[in-house]
């Protein structure tokens, strides 16, 4: 199953959730915000949202900026 994570095409495993993706990517949940198919996902939804074919996932974080 193909998905797009931060603009790059990736393969997701069937049954994987957003939470699984974050763990696999080594991302600490406390520091990011996730947009799934254009909709911001609340933290509690990460475990419930299964990755779907062609899903567009954006995982963003803060950086220094002016």
């Amino acid at each position, binding site marked *: 199953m193909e998905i797009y994570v*931060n603009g790059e095409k990736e393969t997701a495993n069937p049954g994987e959730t957003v939470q699984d993706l974050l763990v696999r*990517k080594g991302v600490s949940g406390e*520091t990011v915000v996730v947009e799934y198919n254009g909709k911001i996902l609340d933290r509690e939804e990460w475990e419930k949202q299964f990755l779907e074919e062609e899903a567009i996932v*954006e995982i*963003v974080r*803060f*950086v220094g900026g*002016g």
Partner: protein
Amino acid sequence: MEIDDKLKIGDKFLSSRLLVGTGKLPNALLPGVIAASGTEVVTVALRRADFHSPQENPLSFIPEGITIMPNTSGARNAEEAVRIARLARAANCGNWVKIEIITDQKYLFPDNEETVKATEILVKEGFVVLPYVIPDLVIARRLEEAGAAAVMPLGAPIGSNRGLRSREFLRILVEEIKVPVIVDAGIGRPSEAAEAMEMGVDAVLVNTAIATAGDPVRMAGAFARAVKAGREAFLAGLAATRKYASPSSPLTGFLHEVKK
């Protein structure tokens, strides 16, 4: 006497009129810079997480109690700015947002018109909106009507350290606009920050001038003093300038006078 001189933005009352940008600064320097600057508001940006070279969250280096103001850098129009603002708010660090919509990559000038649109949308969604703009009185009035918490005109291009090149127009915004006017971008030296404050500007936002100084922590302290100096001078009432000289020592009682 200074007790009451707070700056109200949104529902906050700020004692410090120096806002600090965190760009180009290593996280490790953030606590020192923030402490030395005395700032109560810092800007941050939002970017895609980089899984290959993960970086520590700058927010971990910002003390409790500091207001975080995410900017919408990277946005090229109102729609993108709104999307970034919403993502930032979802990170649970408050509802302030600096709108920064840029299409020009050489001078990084904001798109005033898209900025007005984004302001209108985000104000309705409950954000405290501080738009970064070209100092254009007509636009500033529209932002004010749209409910912007402040307007943030530039002094010179972002990161150029060229100072208050737009001073003629800043002066007019200060005269005409009722919401706070914050000079954002261009200020390169503490003296320029002081000059802005003397003009009656309500606050300044400084990033590059601190971050690229020889000693950023010390420079942050210098800006803190300069902003306060300019503010106090504004409140104290600047002395008038004169075309001719005016003696500072008395004009009578000279030894060489012969009265009789």
